[in-house]
């Protein structure tokens, strides 16, 4: 019998190249998509090339992106929120109705809306925890409940399908300045939600990648039993994520309210899917445990560019939804392909 004098070193796993590491990031697919969409519309839509329209495109993206950031974090945490679209409307209506009905300072309504939005998020998370049902089902329930409440209460309070104007109430001007003002940056008009969007993206990305809460979120979505077993407060993490969606719904709801001066009670239905699609294009897995906040933001940018690009190109805007569907499937395939390539290297 021969003796082995030296154990061979394990050379089966080589270090990955820098390209592979970059390609392995979840947001790569979204970036490729964003460049492709930008090039397409730069070619076909002359108005798309004007610098002044950057502000408009960013604004359109921000109204999706503010929510997509929170929804992406929630999806990484392994859950869905189908009530995210109508929750925005609920928040706006809550502030408008309360302030108008009692003729209060609008800031009272704004604070009430914040508490309500966080409450709806916490309720979703709590219901998920106590029932053990899939979040898809629980939030589908909240979606219908909120939709009904929006329509019914608006009929009761304002006697119609939209909230009453708030512009003669105290605090309206300051609230408008906070939630719906704009400023010039060169020839580009920057509306305030763009700032919120950017700030939320930065905060979301830092929380996810640079704080321990990020690890908790990844693990809660990746394997909640394992996470709980090593001591991650999974229930609390998920409730916090739902409340994060509520918070973002409040920001966007307040913007909508003070930008248009009223809120349509039927608005917001269907937007939850746009948020989810943005997150998925940005690299979030439907099964949780993987994804990127920056990716979701790029996903929103793709939608913002498409919405306006179709308009600038003079196409029928009815095609937007079709484009959405194609984009979703294409992006998911690209993500899968890129991930497989990166893993194989």
């Amino acid at each position: 019998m021969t003796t082995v004098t030296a154990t061979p070193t394990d050379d089966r796993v080589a270090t990955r190249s820098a390209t592979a590491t970059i390609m392995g990031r979840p947001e790569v697919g979204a970036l490729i998509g964003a460049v492709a969409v930008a090039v397409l519309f730069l070619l076909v839509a002359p108005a798309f090339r004007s610098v002044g329209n950057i502000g408009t495109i960013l604004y359109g993206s921000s109204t999706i992106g503010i929510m997509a950031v929170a929804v992406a974090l929630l999806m990484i945490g392994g859950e869905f929120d189908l009530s995210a679209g109508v929750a925005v409307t609920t928040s706006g209506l809550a502030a408008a109705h309360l302030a108008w009905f009692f003729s209060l300072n609008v800031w009272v309504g704004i604070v009430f809306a914040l508490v309500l939005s966080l409450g709806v998020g916490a309720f979703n998370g709590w219901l998920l925890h106590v029932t053990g049902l899939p979040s898809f089902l629980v939030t589908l329930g909240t979606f219908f409940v909120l939709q009904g409440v929006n329509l019914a209460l608006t009929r009761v309070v304002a006697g119609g399908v939209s909230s009453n104007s708030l512009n003669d109430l105290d605090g309206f001007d300051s609230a408008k300045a906070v939630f719906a003002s704009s400023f010039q940056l060169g020839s580009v008009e920057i509306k305030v939600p763009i700032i919120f969007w950017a700030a939320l993206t930065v905060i979301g990305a830092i929380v996810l990648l640079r704080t321990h809460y990020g690890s908790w979120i990844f693990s809660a979505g990746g394997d909640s039993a394992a996470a709980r077993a090593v001591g991650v407060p999974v229930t609390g993490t998920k409730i916090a994520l739902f409340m994060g969606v509520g918070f973002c719904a409040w920001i966007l709801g307040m913007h909508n309210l003070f930008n248009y001066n009223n809120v349509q009670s039927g608005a917001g239905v269907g937007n939850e899917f746009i948020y989810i699609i943005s997150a998925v294009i940005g690299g979030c897995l439907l099964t949780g445990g993987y994804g990127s906040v920056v990716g979701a933001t790029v996903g929103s940018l793709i939608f913002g560019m498409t919405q306006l690009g179709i308009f600038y190109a003079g196409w029928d805007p009815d095609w937007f939804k079709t484009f959405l569907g194609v984009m979703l499937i294409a992006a998911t395939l690209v993500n899968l392909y890129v991930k497989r390539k990166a893993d194989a290297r």
Partner: protein
Amino acid sequence: MNAARTSAARAATTHAGESSTYDGPVLELENIGKSYGNVHALRGVNITVRQGEVTCVLGDNGAGKSTLIKIVAGLHEYSEGTMKLRGIVRQFGSPRVAQAFGIATVYQDLALAPLMSVWRNFFLANEIRKGPFLDIPTMKRICAEELTKMGIVIPDLDRAVGSLSGGQRQVVAIARAIYFGARVIILDEPTAALGVKQSGVVLKYIAKARDAGLGVIFITHNPHHAYLVGNHFVVLKLGHVALDAHRDELTLEQLTAEMAGGQELAELSHELRSVHPEKVVLPHDAPGGIEAPELDPNELAGMEDV
């Protein structure tokens, strides 16, 4: 020393009502029972775990081993008896509480999030922070050091745990538990899914954990592995303690016999005698009842080249 170590050390020193000079057994289970509705998974179990010793808990499938660890690890609450940690009766409400009292657990199903990187998994729920942010370089360095001590080298700690082999994953989970386990470490069948060499590595680390003064609870159904490192042996059978003996009072043969259920093994060997284990039969070439599928010439094309 780094932040995580000191926090673990803090957990290890004193808690409310504990004396710092306690030198009895670190963990005592007295008459512990657990029922799920009308199913009594555990009844009247007494186990004493001392620091610096390996206590092996053996048992066949369904003997109640998993229920037992879940109680100690804080995933389940016991319904009868008392559990004393350093002489004080405790009922852990959650794994986090158990961890804070210095009980670390490595589960059979590994308890790692597959899509998360190795270092994130290693420090999950015990992250080292610099202010509000993660101290990633320190965590990666410590993770690499601890894994190297365990005898595995993972060149890219950003790699997802899901891409590691089963043995590597087990070692990551054990290294993590040893690193953070202040007093008691529970290992749930750590060698069950491993090859011979990696089992050896794991057993070596069980001994190292003991030398470091930890109380080790080693759950296994392999008496050979248990006997290589164990100081004390508890055999569970159908939720009861069937044997509770110190190493001096027991030989490997007795342990194996007890584990295999003595009488039951005799019956089994009697049954198996009729299959003639020494027999070798001729290869089977008689046509069976099912025809192999006929391939058409297109599908066969190219086969000849190979």
